[in-house]
């Protein structure tokens, strides 16, 4: 069934057993909404210098948006900012590919579990679900590190 290309086993797993869910202490908090469907996420980031030491979140949404936040947590926490940004950019590229990118080994190395979302990129209405937490993370990071810069300035 074609649907299986979107609902990979791995995605359903993350959906049912999300990583790092819940709100914990952070340097910045953002609230993002997907206006086309009403999915919502509240997300906090915590940095130690350039290292992302936690992403905590809460929200409501479909399996894709929930699983995507869980994968984000698993993938980004512990990474340096530049590395995390590279992963985010690669994920964005994959999601906006309209199903035209078949992830190669290099991409798999960067995205790990997140390559499972390749199938979602074929469903334009769901791409935004998959990106919700990633956009929130980007925004929160800008706020946290912008603040940090201001603090150190």
């Amino acid at each position, binding site marked *: 069934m074609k649907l299986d290309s979107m609902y990979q086993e791995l995605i359903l797993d993350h959906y049912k057993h999300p990583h790092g869910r819940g709100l914990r202490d952070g340097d910045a908090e953002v609230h993002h909404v997907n206006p086309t469907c009403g*999915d919502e996420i509240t997300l906090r980031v915590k940095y130690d210098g350039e290292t992302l030491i936690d992403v905590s979140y809460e929200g409501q949404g479909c399996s*894709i948006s*929930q699983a995507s936040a869980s994968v984000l947590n698993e993938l980004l926490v512990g990474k340096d900012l530049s590395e995390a940004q590279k992963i985010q950019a690669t994920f964005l590229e994959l999601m906006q590919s309209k199903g035209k990118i078949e992830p190669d080994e290099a991409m798999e190395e960067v995205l790990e579990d997140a390559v499972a979302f390749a199938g979602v990129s074929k469903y334009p209405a769901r791409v935004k679900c998959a990106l919700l937490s990633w956009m929130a993370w980007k925004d929160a990071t800008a706020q946290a590190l912008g603040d940090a810069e201001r603090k150190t300035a």
Partner: protein
Amino acid sequence: MTQLPGLLDIEAIRKDFPLLDRVVHDGKKIVYLDNAATSQKPRQVLDALNAYYERHNANVHRGVHVLAEEATALYEGARDKIATFINAPSRDEVIFTKNASESLNLVANMLGWADEPYRVDRETEIVITEMEHHSNIVPWQLLAQRTGAKLKWFGLTDDGRLDLSNIEEVITEKTKIVSFVLVSNILGTVNPVEAIVRRAQEVGALVLIDASQAVPHMPIDVQELGADFVAFTGHKMCGPTGIGVLWGRQELLEDLPPFLGGGEMIETVSMHSSTYAPAPHKFEAGTPPIAQAVGLGAAVDYLTSIGMDKIAAHEHAITEYAVKRLQEVPDLRIIGPTTAEDRGAAISFVLGDIHPHDVGQVLDEQGIAVRVGHHCARPVCLRYGIPATTRASFYLYSSPADVDALVAGLEHVRNFFG
């Protein structure tokens, strides 16, 4: 096939709707259950559009050539048809807009710019309900912000009906306008018009009824409703996109100020000042949606030829069947009335803790088109503490087999996420 009393000859009707033959996802014939979002269009409407463009197209009014006269006659003839369809006392009370949203905004803006006794300002109040479509919430929020008026609303009961227990506190001497939905697009509820109109008249408030989900589905008589304005939209009633209607009482349309300015709505213009044409033209600035009005006229002819009472009976039978069958699905909870009494053919539900997006996606894979989300009525979702719903909505071409397909599809959804 399941037979229910009161059904239309669905086989025959479906032949009129080319889209219903559409095949999706490797050979599945579409099961279109998204009628509250928009309806499909019968061949008769498409023919009217084509005939207009191929033979009669011209700008209306102001023309002495034969095409302009024909186009004008077709456009104004469509107005006559709509007036008859809703039993308007006068054809001049029928204003063509681009959709129901514009119709609702038009009233809000007229009242914002009106003189006494209609003027909405900081001393006055606006009343809506918690089950309104965003298009009947945001215009009033904007008006309230811009004039300082207070926005109030009726809440909802647990079973998806308006809570009118405090009607005397909600609608008061300060109320200038009460605007509410006749049939909810998310809950399916049919609201008690008479009680609200009576109270509004007691305090001298105007009444606007959002009949977007009513006019397509049941006989509507604006005189019987007793409201001052009634808004609806063409694309949900077998008509084209790009056209809506506002019906308003003649005296009000005469007294109230215009909204959009431009060609067609004027009597005479100089650089220093202008005077306005009488209604309905006063409210139709610019080249109107001519072809779309003609198409809506054809839609109204089509619906009338079948009979609005028969369509209502058909939908009632389908709704009764659907409400019953859906409640057989484990973990399914209907959001809104759980019987077919005082209820339209849009049925929202949640299925366990499976998110509606996932429900909709798996149904789509089976060729079943439903809508998921908050259906432009987010306050209803907040009220019932749910993120969103899945909504199946029926129309004159819907069959018991469509309901069966939906129920089977939902079983599949449960297995998929089970």
